[in-house]
């Protein structure tokens, strides 16, 4: 048994208790000691392991082994969880407060010492994975000799890399030695980097992580019966020994894929890769020791601190927006109107119909446009039916909810009308005036504008107080952020209603001031503007394009501009230049590129690879003061720090946390940057240009 004295004690730990019960297995297979892990809360608080939980498990194993010694027919030890939850990992709540590497190292070692016993006993051990298993919970199951899983279990994963850690309680050694490096890397690295993708029970079986699946109705009974069969020999479990010959090649291939995606921007996935590489020949103890070192290094690194902060923002702040009037002030929305029937408007129609389940009417200039928009919705619904995501009955319901008209009189009984027309102030003002003439005084008028002034759009109306910014990100069905902009005259009821509607649409809503481009697009444009300015000054195109590789934005600048479209990027830069002429840069070269009809800085070769388009290079009149990649990166950091400081000073959002949440959810900026402000603090940009750190030490960074 291990000593727990050197491990940090967390007074807030919700202790997962381990209890042992001994009983007869069926079919004369002898007795089983079953350990149940249960934190005595319901499924809304899944079981995790902190130091006390590990100690409880250790004691339960001792008790089970005492029974083994006392009863010669005690033929198996098994572990199962509480309803719906097996175990979801280590208790990370205290990690943010740990400042001592050896404490982390010891916590890793403690988990190893306790759980490895499951694989080193004289009797066979079984994990009956009755519910969600993640991180250390999955590792507990991997230490057992055999595993069953319920087909009703919500998920299984090793998500540590997603958070900036590695599987630290045996997973990085056990999993590749069980299922081979290729499948192990899918679970340990690829899935976490794909928005923390989880495995379903059938995936766990297919990959060989679990030996058998049973249905939830009698999962435990069937698992025990199966275990009895394993003990008596009537059930055979075939395990293929992983191929060691191809191991190195598989790891190298994975390393190349990782470089391609991350360019070395953050350490955790690379440490995980190194562990899986070493697992080819390392002994069990060597593998576990290496995990302890990697875990300690990562926890004592800035990337992990920023990731925990980001994770916390997405889990908590995203669900409880700050500064919002109470939902009791919200008005009911039983019919929605959408002005426009283009691609954005069609996406909105589909979203509103699906989530609010109320009638949605689209209008546009002519019947042909309206029909095109309705057809988009029908096609979108049909695709979902084809993928098995919607039944035909539900599809009929959705299609029935969405209608179209060329006459705005169709909005007469609407409670919420959103416009998604051409990005031009006069056009939008005209649209709102026409809509106001038809709708009731309390109907919300929302605009999806990304950079124009909501207050200006409301100014000429009889009831400007019901106008609100309601800015989605593309693609509407996927991107979780919704910037809700309160204009000068917007009243509390309108803001409250907007947030209730946003939540019903399953978006994460952030309250922003009606400032140009709100949060995400303002920062993205400042960033892209600096890239283009650097090129204009003479920086080689590929130097500018790769300058931010080391911090790991989700895509390089040229990919971002290709996604947004240079015309849109240019148009927004003009709007922002008008608002902030000293900082937002309008590039004549970019204008030339747009005028020439170029949609990207890059061209695709026959082999699918991208290279800088020589025609674009020819269009650019570059200066002769090139910057290096590092200089470009510093300039971007400073620009972003400057812009964030101004946004906070202007009150665009309440706190740096809101900035970070917006760029995480709206631009996909990575967890290891903490969104952006933790990175700006750690790189020194905040101190250099913004008058000091955005966040106090320790909030999203190491304390010292």
């Amino acid at each position, binding site marked *: 048994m291990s000593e727990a004295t050197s491990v940090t004690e967390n007074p807030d730990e919700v202790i997962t208790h381990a*209890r*042992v*019960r001994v*009983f*007869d*297995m*069926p079919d004369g297979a002898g007795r*089983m000691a*079953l*350990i*149940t892990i*249960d934190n*005595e809360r319901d499924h809304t608080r899944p079981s995790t392991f902190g130091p006390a939980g590990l100690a409880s498990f250790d004691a339960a194993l001792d008790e089970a082994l005492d029974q083994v010694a006392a009863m010669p027919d005690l033929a198996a030890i098994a572990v*199962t969880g509480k309803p719906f939850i097996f175990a979801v990992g280590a208790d990370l709540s205290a990690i943010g407060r740990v400042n001592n590497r050896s404490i982390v190292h010891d916590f890793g070692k403690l988990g190893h010492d306790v759980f490895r016993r499951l694989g080193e006993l004289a009797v066979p051990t079984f994990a009956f994975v009755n519910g969600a298993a993640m991180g250390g919970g999955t590792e507990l199951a991997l230490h057992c000799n055999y595993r069953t899983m319920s087909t009703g279990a919500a998920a299984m994963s090793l998500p540590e890399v997603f958070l900036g850690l590695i599987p630290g309680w045996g997973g990085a050694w056990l999993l590749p030695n069980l299922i081979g490096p290729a499948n192990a890397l899918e679970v340990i690295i690829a899935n976490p980097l794909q928005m923390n993708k989880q495995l379903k029970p059938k995936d766990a079986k297919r990959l060989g992580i679990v030996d058998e699946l049973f*249905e939830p*109705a*009698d999962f*435990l*009974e069937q698992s*025990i*019966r199966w275990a009895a069969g394993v003990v008596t020999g009537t059930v055979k479990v075939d395990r293929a020994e992983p191929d060691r010959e191809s191991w190195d090649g598989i790891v190298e291939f994975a390393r190349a894929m990782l470089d391609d995606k991350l360019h070395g921007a953050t350490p955790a996935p690379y440490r995980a890769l190194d562990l899986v590489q070493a697992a080819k020949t390392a002994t069990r103890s060597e593998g576990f020791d290496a995990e302890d070192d990697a875990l300690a290094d990562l926890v004592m690194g800035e990337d992990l601190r920023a990731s925990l902060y980001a994770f916390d923002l997405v889990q908590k702040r995203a669900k409880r927006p700050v500064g919002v009037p109470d939902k009791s002030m919200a008005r009911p929305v039983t019919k929605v109107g959408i002005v426009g029937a283009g691609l954005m408007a069609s996406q909105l129609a589909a979203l509103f119909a699906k989530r609010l389940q109320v009638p949605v009417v689209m209008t546009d200039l002519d019947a042909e446009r309206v029909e095109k928009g309705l057809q988009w919705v029908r096609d979108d619904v049909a695709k979902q039916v084809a993928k098995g995501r919607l039944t035909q009955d539900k599809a009929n319901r959705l299609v029935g909810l969405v209608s179209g008209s060329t006459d705005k009189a169709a909005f007469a009984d609407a409670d919420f009308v959103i416009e998604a027309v051409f990005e031009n102030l006069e056009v939008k003002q005209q649209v709102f005036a026409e809509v106001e003439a038809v709708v009731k005084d309390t109907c919300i008028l929302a605009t999806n504008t990304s950079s124009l002034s909501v207050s200006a759009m409301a100014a000429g109306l009889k009831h400007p107080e019901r106008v609100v910014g309601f800015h989605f990100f593309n693609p509407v069905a996927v991107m979780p952020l919704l910037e809700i902009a309160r204009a000068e005259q917007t009243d509390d009821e309108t803001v409250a209603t907007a947030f209730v509607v946003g939540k019903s649409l399953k978006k994460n809503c952030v309250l922003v001031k009606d400032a140009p481009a709100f949060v995400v697009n303002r920062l993205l444009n400042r960033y892209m503007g600096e890239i283009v300015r650097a090129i204009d000054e003479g920086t080689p195109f590929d130097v500018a394009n790769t300058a931010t590789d080391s911090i790991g934005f989700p895509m390089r600048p040229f990919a971002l501009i290709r996604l947004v479209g240079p015309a849109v990027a240019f148009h927004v830069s003009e709007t922002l230049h008008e608002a902030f002429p000293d900082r937002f840069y309008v590039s004549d070269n970019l204008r030339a590129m747009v005028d020439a009809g170029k949609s990207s800085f890059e061209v695709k070769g026959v082999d699918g690879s991208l290279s800088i388009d020589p025609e674009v290079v020819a269009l650019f009149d570059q200066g002769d003061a090139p910057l290096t990649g590092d200089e470009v990166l510093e300039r971007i950091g400073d620009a972003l720090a400057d812009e964030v400081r101004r946004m906070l000073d202007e009150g665009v959002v309440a706190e740096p946390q809101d900035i970070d949440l917006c760029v995480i959810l709206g631009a996909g900026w990575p967890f290891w940057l903490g969104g952006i402000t933790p990175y700006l603090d750690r790189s020194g940009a905040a101190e250099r240009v913004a008058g000091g750190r955005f966040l106090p030490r320790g909030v999203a960074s190491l304390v010292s």
Partner: protein
Amino acid sequence: MGRAAQDVVFVDGVRTPFGRAGSSFAETRADDLVVKVFRELLRRNPQLPPERIDDVAVAATTQMGDQGMTIGRSAALLSGLPHSVPGYSVDRMCAGAMTAVTTLSSAIMAGAYDVALAGGVESMSRHPMGEGMDPNPRFLAERIVDTDALIMGATAENIHDRFPHLTKERADAFALGSQQKTAAAYANGWIQPDLVPIAMRSSALGWGLMTADEGPRPETTLDGLAGLKTPFRPHGRVTAGNSSGLNDGATGALLAAESVADDLGLTKKMRMIGFAFAGVEPEIMGVGPVPSTEKALARAGISIDDIDLFEVNEAFAVQVLAFLDHFGIKDDDARVNPMGGAIAVGHPLASSGIRLMTYLARDFERNPQARYGITTMCIGLGMGGTVIWENVDYAGSK
């Protein structure tokens, strides 16, 4: 009655081990017990395509909470049966499962159904006898029943009054026999084949597995029984030792038209010959099996002498003795409850009827020379229920 349009056969029966109320199954939902019984029945009879089940009837006395929600239908859905299989719930208190069987069998005999699934469950931990009961004041005001009638133990004392020759000593001896026969049946491996292992949750102790009845006390002695308190009357005769306990458990049975069983290749353990229910004065509800048996025999055109095996529910030893006494059968007749009974294993109210049938099927299997058997039980508010069965393995019928 004679032979009906379709003969009904008892294809298979299983049960959970029975727990003591407040103990093993205290934290287990009653509908989950039914679900596990049904899934095991289907696993044991893989030749039956589940969509062939025409209806599902599950009995429970207190139809609230985990025993409510039209448990026949809800348990069918939870068991994974296809949506196309309907279900309903039944209540005739202690004879719930028996009534589920007779009701479904009636539909089979009438030719409306081919295959049916019957069940019974009671969690007396979660639904004590009389939960939610609201007796009409007229019962007492017009003396329709005595106050005794609603207390089962008091009705048992009343039977001792009515038949003074049925003494406490005889009741205790019978109870001892039930315990000993149950222990022997376990030792011989007669009971285990029809038990479904059930996971049991305890927040305090963690998950465990039940593979045997919790109730039996094989160490019972006559002296021990003699010293027990008589809770229903001072210096009375009825004790916890010569009555069945308060228990949790579920039973399930598969029934089919005989020709369909043959077509599908299902086993046929016994054939239904007839059934009857009858009422008696509620104050002596224990004698209910007498008129129900008389009635069933008469309709079937056979006599008590034709009956080779008896499974009589042992709510109280004295009530079994009253039945045997009426028909001139000795207390320790070998044909009566050869595997022991409810005094040892328990009586989760609505479930017991199918337990009797499952036991009788095994009695028939061990005794191919036996032709007819009956399952019979007394029922609260003064009733009795009896089903007459024929041994399909009867050597003489070949």
